[in-house]
């Protein structure tokens, strides 16, 4: 069983080696002629007048938190799904209860506008 993960490890190492090769091989052939203008970050062709700074909508945080919560719910579903043939009706009832409780939270988030994005 652990052997399979050793294979994955081999794959990861191979891929890492390959990625490092791709990122570094260009150094041998590509030119490098930096100018101050060229090294500015992109701003539609005009000079940057403000350093990158600012505030962003809190929606991103809310979405991330909701994602964490529903991701945990999804994780609970996986072992339930693979063991379902043994749990049967009992398993169905308990999972419906679980999902319904979470749907209350979902409905609340919906009603409060957490899922709106404008």
């Amino acid at each position, binding site marked *: *069983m652990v052997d*399979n*993960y*050793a*294979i*994955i490890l*081999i*794959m*990861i190492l*191979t*891929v*890492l080696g*390959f*990625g*490092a090769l*791709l*990122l570094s*091989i*260009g*150094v041998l*052939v*590509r*030119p490098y*002629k*930096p100018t101050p203008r060229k*090294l*500015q*970050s*992109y701003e*539609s062709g005009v000079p940057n007048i403000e350093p*990158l700074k*600012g505030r962003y909508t809190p929606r*991103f945080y809310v*979405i*991330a938190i909701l*994602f964490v919560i*529903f*991701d945990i719910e*999804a994780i609970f*579903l*996986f072992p339930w*799904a*693979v*063991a*379902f*043939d043994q749990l*049967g*009706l009992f*398993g*169905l009832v308990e*999972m*419906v209860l679980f*999902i319904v409780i979470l*749907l209350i939270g*979902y409905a609340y988030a*919906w009603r409060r506008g957490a*899922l*709106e*994005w*404008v």
Partner: protein
Amino acid sequence: MTAGDIVEYVVKSAIIIVFLLTAFAYMTLYERKLVGRVQVRHGPNRVGPGGLLQPVADGVKLLFKQAITPRGVDFPLYILAPAISVVAALVTFAVIPVGPGGVNLFGYRTDLWLADLDVGVLFVLAMSSLGVYGIVLAGYASNSKYSLLGGLRASAQLISYELSLGLSLVGVLMLTGSLSLNDIVNGQGGTWLGFIPRWYILVQPLAFIIYAISGVAETNRAPFDLVEAEQELVGGYHTEYTGLRFALFFMAEYINMVTISALAATLFLGGWRGPFFGGPWWLLLKIALLLTGYVLLRATLPRLRYDQLMHFGWRVLLPLSLLNIVITAIGIVLLG
């Protein structure tokens, strides 16, 4: 595990990588050709016969491009980000079975998969959740507002659709009782009534639709390609990347498309099994068909607005995938 085994796995890994890179290169050409056809033009046809060498030309050109590192970037993370993207994309393929086990290949007995994990499906989800880091870190490290906004948008989109993607698989898992992709393919062997293949798409049609839509969103493809909405975000999270560094992001996107298609084929369409002569060619055929679907989507559909995208993911797909799970459970209980 002997030294011989290790050599075998390194060779297999290399084969997978080379296959995925070739698929990536020719997918770009195929996409441009097909979109060209849809728009009544030829697409690339100058380099090589019928434009067949276009991907090579593109690659060489990118290799010779200057690697511009803008001032103010967070260099370690800036250079790690594309590597993370491409590693997450390539490694996912390791658990997909491309054929039956115990095959004689040039007098050498081997299985046509790299690794058969007991938690294969979870491994795929884990890798796709690691892929988010490439995008978040690229957005942060580039020190550019377009990159930051593109990275934020992309990661919010990815995590939103990851939910419905993961939940759409639960129905299949209930039918199989296993997370191993090999078991899932084997569960789809045989036929109903002698001629209908026992593919899960026939018993889980809703799950397949949810998976397909979330898969398109997960790979940031049209009509969900808001990440690269050039009118508002320039290039999104890879605005500040040039040359091969940019190529790695591009590569990750296309390889993810191939992987999502391969997974769709494995989970819902019987994997390498076919009505006759089961083998890797069936998987390839299914992947090719699904990729064609991707390109046709891009050629025909306009891009969604960001609010429409988030609404669709959270208000439509998420409840639907939960509904699918409950329906599947009731069905299994009723039918035994």
